[in-house]
């Protein structure tokens, strides 16, 4: 049966073309783009009443690689919620609606010399809510923290249409249960984020990227890398051979490592000395805008890996962790953000399971795979954890409105 915008409690003007929201080849019965959080709540109330399944959409970059939902009635495009609600530079805080692209936010705070502490591939497309819900991060994951670390509070809509708010907009706040933090990484399956408050950072005075050619042996010596975590570089990313085109002017080697230094000028100079003492002379040094541009290209990389893209987490902090697997064919596609231990790589479908097993033996845990179903994250949780998650889903989304049937756990 056809579904109308009116059935979802909205004016017809909020309807958008469902064919733009296909997931895994499956098109929703209807698609809407509400313009306010109250309208989002109306949609979810109506969906709950009529037992519809709703998929919240931000920029769609991550969803594009998701599998087909088991059920898919409504695509809920949140990009109509795109206002900055409050930005007070002297408080280093910002509150915005969740459909705003993070590049827009980054530009707004950069104009005041500040830094948005969120990263994602394709930031002009990725929305605030999408970054939070997907727990997205980039090369600076350790320096900036994850989305949960920067989120001061949020408004969100539960599956039954309840509009709720937890946390606040001040940098210290221990009043009440921090439900907003639990929504980070929940992939839109616990609630729909509509508004978020963030703790910002001052922008650094100087940014520099040192690019090193890494022959295979260069990874294997832990002592070579040991001094680097202690000086806390903003980022240190190892890129497999396939990505050497990302930086021109670097010799053809097995891999490249980029050390990103972002701080005041005196400390960046000193950090660079320490890094060069440890690793030798860089093949290339990029300053400020060039360093930012390279970081942006590196941040985008994981989203273009394929045909299978695997994302791993690890406690490792230096490139030496890659030494035992450096000879593997699939390491040519690797993107490893060393300070936070995050590793992305591409494999053929047939090779994915083996890559997961090999890396698992070296401390890398698969936490995401696309296309969905090609490899499942290794969930070693005691049975009580999935049971708890199920109770939380039932509590926040009693009618399964946000349960599209493709999430893990």
């Amino acid at each position, binding site marked *: 049966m056809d579904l109308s915008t009116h059935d979802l409690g909205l004016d017809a003007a909020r309807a958008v073309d469902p064919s733009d929201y296909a997931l895994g080849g499956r098109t929703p019965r209807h698609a809407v783009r509400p313009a306010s959080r109250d309208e989002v709540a109306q949609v979810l109330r109506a969906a709950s009443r009529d037992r519809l399944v709703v998929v919240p959409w931000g920029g769609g970059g991550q969803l594009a690689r998701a599998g087909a939902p088991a059920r898919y009635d409504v695509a809920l495009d949140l990009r109509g919620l795109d206002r900055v609600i409050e930005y007070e530079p002297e408080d280093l805080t910002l509150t915005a609606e969740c459909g705003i692209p993070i590049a827009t936010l980054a530009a707004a705070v950069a104009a005041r010399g500040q830094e948005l502490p969120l990263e994602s591939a394709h930031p002009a497309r990725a929305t605030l809510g999408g970054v939070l819900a997907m727990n997205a991060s980039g090369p600076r994951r350790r320096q900036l923290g994850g989305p949960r670390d920067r989120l001061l509070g949020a408004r969100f809509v539960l599956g039954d249409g309840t509009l709720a708010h937890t946390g606040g907009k001040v940098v210290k706040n221990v009043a009440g249960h*921090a439900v907003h933090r639990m929504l980070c990484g929940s992939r839109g399956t616990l609630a729909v984020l509509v508004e978020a408050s963030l703790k910002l950072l001052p922008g650094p005075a100087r940014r520099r990227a040192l690019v090193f050619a890494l022959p295979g042996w260069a990874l294997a010596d832990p002592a070579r890398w040991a001094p680097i975590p202690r000086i806390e570089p903003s980022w240190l990313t190892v890129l497999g051979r396939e990505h050497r085109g990302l930086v021109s002017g670097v010799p053809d080697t097995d891999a490249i490592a980029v050390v990103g230094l972002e701080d005041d000028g005196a400390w960046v100079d*000193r950090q660079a000395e320490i890094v060069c003492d440890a690793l030798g002379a860089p093949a290339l040094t990029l300053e400020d805008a060039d360093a930012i541009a390279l970081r942006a290209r590196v941040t985008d990389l994981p989203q273009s890996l394929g045909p299978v893209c695997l994302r791993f987490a690890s406690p490792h902090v230096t490139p030496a962790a890659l030494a035992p697997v450096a000879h593997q064919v699939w390491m040519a596609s690797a993107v490893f953000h060393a300070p936070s231990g995050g590793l992305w790589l591409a494999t053929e479908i047939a090779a994915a399971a083996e890559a997961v097993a090999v890396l698992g033996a070296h401390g890398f845990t698969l936490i995401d795979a696309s296309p969905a179903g090609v490899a499942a994250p290794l969930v070693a949780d005691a049975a009580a954890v999935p049971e708890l998650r199920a109770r939380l889903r039932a509590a926040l989304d009693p009618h399964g409105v946000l349960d599209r049937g493709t999430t893990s756990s």
Partner: protein
Amino acid sequence: MSFTASDLAELRALLGDEGVLATDAALFTYEADALTLERFRPDVVVLPRSTDEIAAIVRWANAHGVPVTPRGAGTGLAGGATPMQGGVVLSLNRMGRILSVDADRMFAWVQPGLVNLQLSQQLAPLGLYFAPDPASQQVSTVGGNVATNAGGPHCLKYGVTFNHILGAVVVLADGSAVRLGGEAPDAANDDLLGVVCGSEGTLGIVTEICVRLMPKPAAVETMLFDFPSIVDACRTVSAVIAAGIVPAAMEIMDQHTTQLIEEWLHIGLPTDAAGVLLIEIDGPAESMRGQVEAVVAHAKAHGTGNIRIAQDAAERAAIWKGRKSAFGAYGRTQKGFYIMDGVVPRTRLAEALETIVGLADRHQLASGNVFHAGDGNLHPHILFDPDDPKAQADALEISHEILRMCIRMGGAISGEHGVGIEKRPMMSEMFAEADLATMERVRRAFDPACRLNPGKILPGGGGCGEGARSAREGIPARIGAMFPREDAEGPWI
């Protein structure tokens, strides 16, 4: 319920004789945390030594239908560790070890009863430390810090406890032990640890904690500025932040406070200034000079009189001793006083202080202000005669008005002490009914029978915030006077 000899025998079989305390003296000791006027007697105190023992206690409590209230060092100021419904107080004091340290990858597994400062002291030879430093850190435990998501003077730059916790083993309300998060910063799913942190022991009992460690800063500079008006001190704070400098700490004391401290300790605090601003910066030695010069320039631009920069570690320690002695200094006045914990946006600090002073003046009560200015975290102290019912009522009214002001300004009713018992009535003013109902849904998903630390955080009304077991329900609206020992440096605020 009242515990029978058979109940105690069962617990002793689980924990050994020394793990179960049931004497009158022991039960009295555990009636309250640092919010001492709210006292509720537990039926038993247990001191487990392992995750397995904690799980066994929780299962035993489930089988007997009794509540369990976890407790660290008991330094909480909001009554979070007070057993409102009696039952079992589960003290983590016998679980105070560092389990492992990975210095290269900068994390450690610790037990929850480990004292915060001992962790950093033991890590010092490795050049690492645990950044959260609540002023209670000489006493308070890492588990307690997780439960209250503790802050501290240096959380301005480094973040609160939650930002430094990678993972934890948690005993859930059904007695199962699970691991949430881990050594890696990211995981496959939604962040359950994120909601457990700061839940004041209501969602689970944290039994092992993976803490993120930081390299110890190479250099520290501690500066003290005096100002002819506290408003100027507040404006300096905003100016420094706006200039892109995030000091490790920015603390303000008003004249009332500095005079009391100086009368006591004679450490050279300027007593004729309306406000004193302490700014500490830390980081690489290369960065210090430029930041010191910038901070001093901002302070001068806002009218600072005298500038004192600590010349060595001893002078730095003396300055911090002054700051951390505020609590003890108030206690020396021999009056009751009430410490509050509220937050306003940093840019509204000056306005907030004027309001606080105005409220106290209107009721003819003295107030002192010492606060974490960098993050807008106020700790107003209202001084009153606890034997005077009118003064007590006035102090209560002032405290509620101050918290309402925090809410109006877009702040919070607690920055670091937690809600516990004390702030429950204010939760309904800060949050809408739907917000509280959402929190209750999450709480019930974790703990369907509300057995873990019942009566805390959420306001009453039939949910998990339902209050005390006795006729003392309603007490949270009362005010508690605090009488610290005079020798206490005040590791509290």
